[in-house]
């Protein structure tokens, strides 16, 4: 079975935040909860790079390992989801996650919080597929509709890729190959003329 992954091509990401807005509008995410965000380093200097980050749906996801109530689980296709009916809002997953993905709708770092919210890969949640409960708690279920996550679908430069790991790594490999060719091989055009 296909393994779902995200890949953000930093050579292409222009920090337009289109992915963030697509995610929020499409899934009706409350203000203050960031399932996805764009991080920029070296802003305003040569070497400035931006990368769009959300839950990466890790293999051996640390959030699953630390969850004391087994609210977080991984689907066969690799997508990591949370069951909001079970989550107690303890925040362990937030501490364990290397990407800062888990979000909490209310409260501070210590004290009472609501159920954890994070990127669902636009695959809804454990509630019945396409049900009102699923839409309200988790957002759209585009995967069940055969569509890619909104963020990647709306990416203006196709920097953010989402889908079957084999397919997206092929796309990226092709880009990397092209970047290393052409005018980089100085003089080939003149010397060999394609022969």
């Amino acid at each position, binding site marked *: 079975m296909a393994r779902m992954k995200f890949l953000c091509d930093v050579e292409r990401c*222009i*920090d*337009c935040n289109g992915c963030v807005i697509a995610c929020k*509008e499409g899934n009706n995410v409350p*203000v203050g909860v960031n399932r996805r965000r764009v991080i920029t380093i070296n802003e*305003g*200097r040569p070497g*400035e790079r931006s990368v769009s980050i959300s839950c990466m749906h890790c293999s051996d996801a640390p959030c699953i390992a630390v969850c004391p109530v087994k609210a977080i689980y991984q689907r066969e296709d690799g997508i990591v989801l949370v069951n909001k009916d079970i989550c107690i809002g303890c925040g362990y997953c937030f501490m364990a996650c290397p990407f800062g993905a888990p979000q909490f709708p209310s409260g501070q770092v210590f004290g009472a919080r609501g159920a954890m919210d994070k990127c669902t890969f636009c695959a809804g949640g454990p509630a019945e597929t396409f049900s009102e409960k699923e839409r309200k708690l988790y957002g759209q279920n585009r995967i069940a509709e055969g569509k890619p996550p909104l963020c990647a679908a709306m990416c203006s430069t196709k920097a953010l890729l989402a889908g079957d790991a084999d397919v997206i790594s092929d796309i990226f490999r092709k880009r990397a190959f092209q970047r290393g060719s052409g005018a980089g091989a100085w003089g080939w055009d003149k010397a060999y003329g394609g022969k």
Partner: protein
Amino acid sequence: MTNSLNDIRHSKLVFMIGSNAAEAHPVAMQHVLYAKEVNNAPIIVVDPRFTKLAAKATDYVRIRPGTDTAFVMGLINQIVSNDWYDKDFVRARVAGFPEMCKVASHYTPDVVEDITGIPASEVVRIAKLMATHRPGTVVWCMGGTQHSIGSSNTRAFCILQLVLGNMGKSGGGTNIFRGHDNVQGATDMCVLSHSLPGYYGIKDGSWKHWCRVWDVDYEWIKSRFHSKEYMNKKGFTLARWYEGVNQDDKINQYTPIKALIQWGCAGNSNSMLHRVKKAMDKLELVVIVDPFAPAMCTWGEKDNVYLLPCSSQYETSGSLTSTSRQFQWRFKVVDPIYESKDDYEIMAELVKRLGFADKFYKNIKKVPEDITREICKGTLTIGYNGALPERIKKHTLNWHTFDIDTLQAKGGPCDGEYYGLPWPCWTETHPGTPILYDISKPVAKGGLPFRARFGTKITYYDGRTEDLLAAKGVANPGSQVKGGYPEFKDIVPGTNWKTDLSQKTIKEAIKRGMAPFGNARARCVVWTFPDQVPVHREPVHSPRPDLIAKYPTYNDKPDQYRVYTRFKSEQNPDLVKKFPFVIITGRMVEHMGGGAETRSNKYLSELQPHVYAEINERTANNLGIRNGQMVWIESPEGGRAKVMAKVTDRVDEHTIFLPYHFAGQFEGKSLVDRYPEGMAPYAVGEPANIVTNYGYDIITQIQATKDGLCNVKPA
């Protein structure tokens, strides 16, 4: 835009000057990045600011604001003097070349370094890059145009492409990215004060042409004007309309302006807003048509403002013209919500009350199709005539049958046509013109020579006479005349290709394999402009007193679009002492134009809640300003804005940058309570244009918001 966004995929080099496409045109960036990736094209970004676009450049060139012409003439000088120019192209298709070269020879690398701040070695290196990577495209936006010498800047960019031989070629061209989806359409309709739709001008012949199209009596139209003089006199521009009210500069009109209708236009994009605000109170009537309550409805102290809520683009339908000159049909998604009406309905109600609906709607029974049809009938100059509503819809509905690289349909109902029938689309069977001035294709298949617009012969200021038509042997394949030829006329007696409403003239030209508008040379010398060849002139408010002496601005223009416009009398070498920083404005990717819509979106407001001034770290430390602190920006015109300091390396130590999308606060005072109930945007702040300066382009009168002066101090 001579080529298309997609065509940038064929560029071997992308030269972007005065454009921050990564923020202003994020979707266009996929083609730029494709050229970078697949063609290994150098991406040269010339900007005073290290923008998000600069972050994607291979070569970033920091330039002093307002010195684009000096830099580009310097590049041209290198290309010509090193013999890197396209000799065949220049010989066959360019006019005024020796005159231009003589002017360019002044701009040696050292002179360019002194004016622009770009190291002399960089001038040589960039010129060589451009010469060795052809075809390259040149892209610019408002950073190129919003200067007192904006029209010289844009001409210099065009001349650069002519000497490189990059015009009329896939991967080349001059490509000016438009900021909204229908800006090209609005431009083509000449929503301007000096021309009727289709660039026909406002002479008697132009009025008579459109009266024939509208099927109304010319005498009746004439009777609507104060006097015949005003029918042919250029009106006030968007940049300076408020002078028609305030009269701080002398106006040339029989009456001051008494009423204003601002329709889908953000008031906070005008420079010197404190003067706009003053005009609001002097007007008898202000009508604002907008889907969101815009900034302007909060400025007046008088009860003279009417706000008409119109629908958004998703609640109406019609044709538009994109930046790539492509037509597209916009289908309605939902009906207008609340009490809003679409633009057509608002216009219809207005026309009915003004009492000439019978004449206005003579050709229009079905809205909006018949409107498009009327536009097509009259706009022959740029070949709108072939893009009828049925064809536009067919393209939009079958967009998936077109190739992303060539824009041509492969099979399907639009087989062989180019997506959106890019104008000129000369006949009802013409495929559209994907690349302007491409002489390698027959005209009937989308090829085109340069237009014979300016006569057939010219004697220049140096006494040399030149034939303006293209050289012998140079014409599109299949042309009956193998060489230059003038425009077509008198096929139908008394008319020419652009006034013959039967379109027989255009069809005849196409049949002969020729362009209706002739086959001429592109000119480097414009004999009607004050600078016949582009030269550097210091900004009206310049930070370099020494260069004002060397490169002074123009003489004042007593009647520029009905108002006295100061140039020389405004240029003061001492101004920089009190206002030591250059102020530039621009866009954020999260907000759009005046921001009425985007600042009313909670998610976009969450991402960009504040207006800020970008200040270099060194400058901030010298002024005792910390990141996040509030500061006052003060303009020489008396306007001041209280904004947050953003300490960053994006700008150099002489420059201050402000995004211009904000409103809701004015010179430190909140105006939030002045919005109609529930209409205040989530993100409010000072409009940057309170502190933009006086200064206008010598030809177009576009405001010089990209090279003013200001002062900064902690608040």
